[in-house]
């Protein structure tokens, strides 16, 4: 094996892919779709909300006026409170009949009934032509709650109450190396995001690579190249070139996400929902170091299997069938990752994290969510390393034995013989 040959192959693969229209389009399209989903849709919904003309029916609670002023001060939805009706409980049904008629005649959009209640002060009902808009419904509910609290507590107590409501319990993970704030939410989120990254890279780019190999095989391009480079150099060059492409694309996306989180989101109201999310805490050195190990070994292991499968196929249709058994472990590993995130110390989680074709995702999830003993982590890495090396070796043999041959796909028995026939 010669590094310069592998580099030449990887470089060509990388440049061809990065310059392709497909790469540029997907690189821009995915964030654009995300942006539409996360920014443009909510903004449009907000801008799109027409005035909501309301009548408030206060049946003996006394908070009707407070609720009205709160709603009118609301920025997210332009409420117009037409009037606050004070009615006796006995007259409520009659008032409701009139107001419902007004809704049907489109004089108002809805009305809010506040009925006196001995335990909660007010029971509220919102009658409207349209009750599906979550923002409107939540805002009105919030205003009612605020009205009740304001009438129950005086200024000082109210202020203290609000502070209690805002404060959240913190979680701190205690490990051998110290204590770390953030805890479950952060670990869960980062495990999910990074696991997803590995999963997507393997499935998306690994399959693209296998497809490219089939195309180069059926167009007999391989014949022109093999000889100058060995089949192993060709395979590894391909795997690395595609990996570099994937990392470039992911890098661009992460950069965009970072810019969005740090720059754009706080400017919009959405930022507040993520204020608690400690980005630096989620992406600490330990997480990233383990992620790099599991990502690299996992990708190499899966990608070379895909490459070997590509080498046995003559057409893309054939490839799609042949890929299924190889994709299944990746999907299963990804699914079991969710189980492990919630039960990181169970026996099943431990067992799953030592099965080498699952390890990249499952052990990473354990490492990130809980604190498995160090020897367990490193044992799984050693097992993974050995399995990856054996897989690459066997895949190389199959690749070499099939890449220049056309016709019927070899069966499992034949593949086994190819691997055994050391040459």
């Amino acid at each position, binding site marked *: 094996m010669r590094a310069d040959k592998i580099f*030449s192959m990887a470089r060509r693969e990388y440049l061809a892919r990065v310059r392709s229209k497909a790469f540029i389009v997907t690189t821009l399209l995915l964030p654009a779709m995300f942006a539409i989903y996360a920014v443009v849709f909510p903004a449009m919904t907000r801008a799109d909300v027409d005035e909501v003309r309301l009548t408030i029916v206060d049946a003996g609670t006394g908070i009707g006026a407070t609720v009205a002023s709160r709603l009118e001060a609301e920025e997210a939805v332009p409420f117009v409170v037409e009037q606050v009706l004070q009615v006796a409980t006995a007259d409520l049904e009659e008032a409701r009949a009139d107001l419902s008629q007004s809704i049907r005649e489109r004089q108002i959009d809805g009305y809010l009934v506040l009925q006196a209640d001995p335990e909660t002060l007010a029971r509220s009902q919102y009658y409207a032509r349209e009750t599906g808009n979550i923002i409107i419904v939540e805002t009105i509910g919030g205003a009612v709650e605020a009205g009740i609290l304001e009438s129950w507590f005086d200024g000082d107590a109210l202020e203290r109450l609000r502070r209690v409501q805002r404060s959240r319990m913190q979680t701190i993970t205690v490990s051998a190396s110290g204590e770390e704030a953030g805890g479950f939410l952060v670990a869960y989120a980062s495990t999910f995001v990074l696991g997803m990254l590995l999963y997507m890279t393997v499935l998306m780019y690994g399959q693209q690579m296998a497809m490219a190999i089939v195309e180069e095989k059926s167009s007999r391009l391989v014949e022109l190249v093999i000889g*100058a480079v060995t089949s192993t150099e060709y395979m590894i060059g391909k795997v690395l070139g595609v990996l570099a492409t994937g990392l470039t694309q992911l890098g661009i996306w992460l950069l965009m996400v970072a810019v969005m989180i740090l720059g754009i989101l706080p400017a919009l109201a959405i930022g507040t929902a993520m204020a608690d999310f400690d980005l630096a805490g989620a992406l600490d050195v330990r997480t990233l170091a383990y992620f790099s190990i599991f990502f690299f070994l996992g990708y190499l292991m899966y990608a070379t299997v895909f490459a070997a499968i590509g080498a046995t196929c003559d057409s893309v249709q054939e490839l799609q069938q042949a890929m299924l058994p190889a994709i299944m472990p990746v999907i299963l590993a990804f699914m079991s990752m969710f189980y492990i995130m919630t039960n990181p110390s169970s026996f099943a989680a431990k067992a799953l994290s030592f099965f080498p074709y699952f390890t990249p995702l499952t052990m990473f999830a354990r490492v990130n969510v809980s604190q498995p003993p160090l020897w367990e982590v490193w044992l799984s890495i050693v097992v993974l390393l050995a399995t990856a090396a054996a897989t690459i070796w066997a895949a190389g043999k199959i690749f070499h034995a099939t890449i220049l041959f056309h016709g*019927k796909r070899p069966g499992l028995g034949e593949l086994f013989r190819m691997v055994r026939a050391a040459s």
Partner: protein
Amino acid sequence: MERPLALRCRGLTKSFNGTKAVDALDLSVPERTIFGLLGPNGSGKTTTIRIVLGIFARDAGEVTTLGIDDALAVRDRLGYLPEERGLYPKMKVGEQLAFLGSIRGLSRRDAKQRAERWLGRLGLAERARSETNELSKGMQQKVQFAAAVIHEPELLVLDEPFTGLDPINTRLLKELILEQRDRGATVVLSTHRMDQVETMCESICLIHEGRDVLAGPLSEVKAAYGKSSVQLEYDGPPGALAALEGVREVRDSGRAASLLLEKGADSQRLLRQLIERVTVRSFVLAEPSVEDIFLDKVGYVPGLATHPPVAPGADVLLAEESPA
């Protein structure tokens, strides 16, 4: 005087799934010559080529490529134009050629300069920035040839370089191949075009069913056959050439025929027989053509398509029936 050999095989053997593709093959290719590697389809030529280029490992025998027994170690000094070949369809022609040079060990800058020069040579300078799939088949074939020689290999293996080329490009390619030899390269030409072998190759080896059935300098090979063939041009009814005395085989093309004589046959008696049956326009007593020798050696039976027992080797997938 014995010339040093660019390529030497002794007892080369290779099987695929128990079928011998190459069977105890001997091959000696003298340096700085054009060497014809002949044989019917499926005779083991491609497998032999792949072994001497280091693509396949052999089962048994000796191989010396450019003086050493490790083709991979000298692969940057080898050039190869495979019979079935493709190019990256979406890659720009110039980049493609430079890439193919760089995997043969040229530096990127050197590869780029040489690619430009070659495209100029082939009249494709203006297409350097086109995508390869915009080129005609003939143009692509010229690019593939350039890719095989861009790094100035010492040993150049060309497998059917002429297929699909028009007469103009055939002539151009022939010139380019001769130029490679004049530069000092050894050229192994595997082809079914017997006229090309006749005019270009100094020595040949004929492979049949994995064995070398005939080898040596073309002049010696022909001399060994003697003036045992008659090139006849005639006018006459069909079947007029049947059952001629002293003739063991007739290859009749309608108005011309090639007659292979039996050992010790009397050519004058043959001529008298012919004059009785047909109008003889031309009767030339000659050495057999390469085509005659080829057909003779592989046991061609007129009117009957024969194939080697099982197509052995690289042109077939090794899987027959999967046991799984």
